[in-house]
């Protein structure tokens, strides 16, 4: 039997999403009757979810928990997708209050428009790859509402509440080292890895060379232990260290 909505009132659908570190807002999706639906924001009204699925007023929206007591929403109620984004509907005439739901909500992560269910809101890159059956040479990007999506580091903690929409890309990225093209199998590398990878691909790298990133703002030294995120067309120079004379 469905349970009356337990979410907090007061947040209309027009509230701007808080973005950690001033990033662009994350994309959100909902699953309704096993269909993946793009959502305009994290917090929406129940009727918006039904409307996206083409479902009319004769049905009541329920958030799908790992329980027989799912949370029910009336049409004008706000739904925070971060609390669970998997839904189903029942005929409105069957909707009735029931006991509170204590089970976790089902959570749907989306990867390149495919989706998988979990009840665990915290993942790692490894667990998310396993959820979608992806190999290690695939890089994950959190999908933001901007052209600049953010690669997810292997050591990052992936929280459902930060946005469940991702895309995957083969990791390879090609940059220039000492004017030679060097291809990397991953984007986040250390200065030392840049030098060793370049050397393996035939670039003359001086022993104990000093690595610089050539940027529009000038040369930036990259110590061996510093990690950088490579982008296509990045350019690096590795030059001999100097001696006192």
């Amino acid at each position, binding site marked *: 039997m469905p349970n009356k909505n337990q979410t907090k009132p007061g947040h209309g659908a027009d509230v701007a999403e808080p973005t950690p570190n001033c990033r662009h807002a994350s994309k959100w999706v909902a699953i309704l009757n096993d269909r993946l639906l793009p959502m305009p924001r994290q917090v929406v009204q129940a009727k918006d979810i039904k409307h996206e699925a083409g479902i009319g007023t004769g049905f009541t929206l329920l958030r799908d928990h790992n329980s027989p007591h799912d949370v029910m929403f009336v049409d004008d109620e706000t739904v925070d997708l971060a609390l669970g984004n998997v839904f189903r509907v029942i005929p409105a005439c069957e909707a009735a209050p029931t006991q509170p739901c204590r089970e976790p909500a089902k959570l749907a992560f989306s990867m390149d428009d495919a989706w998988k269910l979990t009840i665990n809101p915290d993942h790692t890159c490894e667990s998310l790859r396993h959820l979608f059956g992806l190999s290690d040479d695939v890089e994950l990007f959190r999908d933001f509402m901007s052209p600049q999506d953010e690669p997810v580091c292997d050591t990052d903690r992936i929280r459902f509440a930060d946005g469940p929409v991702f895309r995957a890309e083969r990791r390879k990225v090609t940059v220039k080292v000492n004017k030679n093209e060097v291809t990397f199998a991953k984007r986040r590398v250390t200065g030392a890895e840049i030098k060793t990878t370049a050397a393996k691909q035939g670039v003359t790298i001086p022993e104990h060379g000093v690595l*610089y990133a050539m940027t*529009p*703002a000038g040369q930036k*030294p990259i110590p061996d232990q510093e990690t950088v995120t490579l982008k296509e067309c990045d350019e690096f120079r590795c*030059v*001999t260290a100097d*001696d*006192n*004379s």
Partner: protein
Amino acid sequence: MNAAVQQAVAEIRSAYSGHQVDVAPDGQDGAFVKVHDLPLGSQYAPERSWVAFRITFQYPFADVYPHYCLPNLVRKDKGALCSAFSQKTCPGPGDPEPATMVSRRSNQLNPTTDTAALKLAKVLDWMSSQ
């Protein structure tokens, strides 16, 4: 200034676009360059200075060194500067001026990758790490 020296100057102006860059021909197809208001490191007095150097006509096949900054550079902790530092006069388009010379040589110069702009960055990074 020959084409290679002009290219070096252009790269320095681009890399240090927020700084005044004085350039004068050295009369032998090379150039005297002085970049102003560069950070030397918080351990020095003064912390910031102009840095001057000469790019000879043989560039990029010749190293760009030594470099010069304000005279009488000292460490705030009163410690001695290492052997790379000495008090000299800095050559330039006018009369030589008193300066602190910083002599750091690239013993395995690679003319395809080593640039005057990179050399200046290396010298500044080395100074700030001392």
